[in-house]
């Protein structure tokens, strides 16, 4: 009898183990299609932003990771190695001794370190984006709850970034001197569509000093003049879309304006190798996703009246430090918006014949409360298949400035 009980117990235990397997951490194999019916099997690899999309009807295939598409330009890797062990966080939360490359290697980030969240934020902020970017065309597709779409577009050199500090691959390196005011990068964004906004341009200077707010000017075509803008504009809607200017590519704000906390790590499904324009179902993007290791960080704004109460991001642990998934909470504690970033690897160099560089040129933001979303796509290739996003193409500071707005903004 005793033997029977033992055998029965063993069988029961074995059955329980077998039964429990599907709800344990199961990594989806390449080829798996994840959708509304099976997502719970893989929930360990999913995040609230992705789960919310699946509940709305998203399905997507799982593919093998292609880490080679996330490799930065060679100079960035070398600069990161030179930096190793030298970069620190100062008393004001500022970055000390950083010259170029990744500030903190993965091995320097410890869950127990109270500064770990800020370290991840700096890795994300100074991730490899090329020493410059020239993105020709973009379309922001706003999809309302009824599926009706509105569009905002840029047609010609619509997004330009020039890194003044932290340059790793194009001369002058590591900094474009003279730089007496400590500019970190220059950025121009232009709108060519629809007609009512045609010619609107925004020029932003970001400084390395965490206490120094951005300088922003806008060319307002109906006024035909350049207007100085408040830094508070970064919290406002980006052209009526579902994100703010600070939300461009997940997070485009200033790390020093938030209190950061590393709340965990997770291997999640992300869009490593995608092509734009995406095949979409409304604002849902059924592009293939692959598994990547991420840090999970939380950002609480220091400014009381900031538009969000909290932001959570899943930042890649590798060099690319992409914020693959992100979500924000409102001041009532409700999950307000979720979003996802997608990478399309682009070749670098003036002739686009260099190695790949990470370029997260498309992303989605979904407003859960208003049940609508916006897909942001910078077109990597034109209709003839020619690459239309350029990295390290040799932009110079002459191409930026308040006067450039006036010249380029004319209708």
């Amino acid at each position, binding site marked *: 009898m005793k033997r029977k009980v033992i055998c029965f117990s063993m069988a029961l235990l074995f059955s329980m183990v077998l039964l429990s397997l599907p709800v344990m951490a199961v990594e989806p194999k390449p080829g798996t299609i994840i959708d509304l019916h099976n997502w719970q099997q893989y929930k360990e690899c999913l995040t609230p932003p992705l789960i919310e999309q699946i509940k709305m009807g998203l399905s997507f295939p799982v593919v093998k990771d292609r880490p080679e598409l996330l490799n930065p330009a060679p100079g960035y890797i070398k600069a990161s190695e030179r930096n190793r062990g030298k970069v620190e966080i100062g008393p004001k939360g500022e970055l000390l001794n950083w010259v170029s490359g990744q500030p903190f290697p993965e091995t320097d980030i410890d869950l127990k370190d109270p500064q770990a969240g800020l370290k991840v934020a700096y890795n994300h902020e100074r991730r490899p984006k090329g020493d410059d970017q020239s993105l020709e065309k973009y379309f922001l597709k706003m999809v309302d709850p009824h599926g009706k779409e509105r569009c905002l577009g840029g047609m010609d050199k619509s997004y330009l970034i020039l890194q003044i500090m932290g340059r790793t691959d194009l001369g002058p390196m590591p900094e474009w001197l003279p730089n007496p005011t400590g500019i970190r990068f220059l950025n121009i964004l232009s709108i060519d569509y629809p007609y009512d906004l045609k010619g609107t341009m925004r020029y932003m200077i970001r400084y390395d000093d965490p206490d120094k707010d951005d300088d922003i000017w806008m060319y307002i075509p109906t006024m035909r003049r350049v207007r100085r803008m408040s830094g508070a504009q970064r919290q406002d809607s980006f052209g009526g879309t579902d994100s703010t200017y600070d939300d461009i590519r997940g997070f485009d704000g200033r790390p020093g304006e938030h209190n950061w906390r590393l709340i965990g790590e997770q291997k999640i499904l992300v869009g490593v190798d995608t092509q734009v324009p995406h095949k979409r179902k409304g604002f849902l993007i059924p592009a293939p996703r692959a598994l990547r290791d991420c840090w999970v960080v939380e950002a609480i704004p220091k400014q009381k009246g900031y538009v969000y109460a909290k932001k959570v991001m899943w930042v890649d642990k590798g060099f690319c430090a992409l914020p693959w998934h992100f979500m924000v909470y409102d001041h009532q504690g409700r999950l307000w918006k979720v979003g996802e970033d997608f990478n399309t690897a682009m070749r670098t160099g003036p002739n686009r014949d260099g190695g790949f560089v990470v370029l997260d040129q498309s992303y989605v933001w979904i407003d859960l409360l208003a049940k609508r979303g916006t897909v942001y796509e910078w077109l990597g290739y034109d209709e003839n298949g020619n690459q239309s996003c350029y990295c390290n193409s040799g932009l110079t500071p002459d191409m930026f400035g308040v006067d450039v707005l006036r*010249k380029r903004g004319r209708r």
Partner: protein
Amino acid sequence: MGEKRKGRHFFWKGSMIGLFIALLLCPAISMAVEFGDGALRLNGYFQNETGVRFKDHALMYAEDGDLSLMRSTFQLDFSGKFSPTVTYGGVYRAWYEGMYDLDDDSIDQRPRDKMLKDGDFREYYLTADFGNLSIQLGKQQLVWGESDLFRMADIVNPLDLSWHYVFPCFQDIRIPLRMAVISYAPRWHDLLVEVVAIPEDFQTAKLAPEGANWFPPAFLMPGLYNHAIYLMERDEPDTTLKNFEGGLRLKGVFGGVDLSLFYFYSRSDTPVMEFGLTNPLPTMLRMKFPFYQAAGGTFTYYNPATKTVFRGETVFNIDNPYTAMITHPLLGVPVPTPVEKDVWAFMLGFDRPTFLGWPKGRTSFISGQIFQKYILNHDDSLIVGDMEDKDKQTILTFTINTTLGQGNKYIPQLLIGYDVSGSGLVQPQLKYTYSDNISATLTANFLWGHDELGGFFSPYKDNDEVWLQLRVSF
């Protein structure tokens, strides 16, 4: 009563026709039309603006409920490049004012000939860009200054105030002039050196003729005013190099502050009257457009602690022409005589995007300005139409607007203007965007002021109206 009903009937009829025309013309294309890889790019819009009055006109040119506006506009913006360094651009605009045809019983028909329709290439210019140096030649607008609604530095182009006073967007009512603008930007402190030369093209400001809604009844007696308009046209200088106007602006960013200095040698685009015994009968008046000089500066400063942009602008006009009633040496009675006075004006303002808790996630743009103008060496003989105090004018403006919905579907705005002499304007507005290319804007004007002369808004205190702008763009 019957007349009012008739006016309202015409209003609805006019509105419906306007809407129908705009929707009929709604283009199948929604994006800009482009030819030859940027060689020619076309954009534009069809637009109808239909308005109705709330009050009888001060001089009974129209009644409560009559149309105040029924203007249909087609605008085509064209631009392109001849080469990487030489580009061109321009604007063709044609318009038809329908209220004289649709409401011919109630609306005063006197302005009909001048204000019924027109079509022309408003702007056309070539731009040559040689790196830091660029030259733009042609008929164009040049905008200086940091003020909204006021024009102290923005004085290069005159305004067309005839059809809807100052309420359209300034770029739609500036009168483009043939000019050369040379810009040099040496990439040092965002410095811009801008030289403008207007060799021969002189245009007067365009004022509403007698019988039109925006005829300023308080300035002068009816009849005399119309005669003044006639004199303006008669005495407007011919196109000649004697009209030369020109100026210089230096603009840059120093210590985080945007600064500019400007100088403009200008021919007054509003006239002064001169009485002369040898002048043509019957009034023996002649209109003159004297030259004067304007020099000033602007600043814009962003204060990060308050997230507020502060703006300022000042101008000193040397020998600003005015008409004064001065005793004629032979006749012994006061007659209109041109005089020159120095004028100092300034504007201080602020802009602040502010989260008010509503709409969710959107800031409200709050902006305020104070504007003051002083006529130095003033005396009581001066005729100053729009000023309550003869030597000083103070106007305050406040604007608040925000955006709602995806694609900024709704843009509500409230504008308040107040002349401290006791006249003002409240202008609520709501813009609704149906799609990327179709929008409707509903705006109302509520004006108040004194019955007697004076105050910026007083002459138009009976011109309360509401109007709908429907636009289809491509």
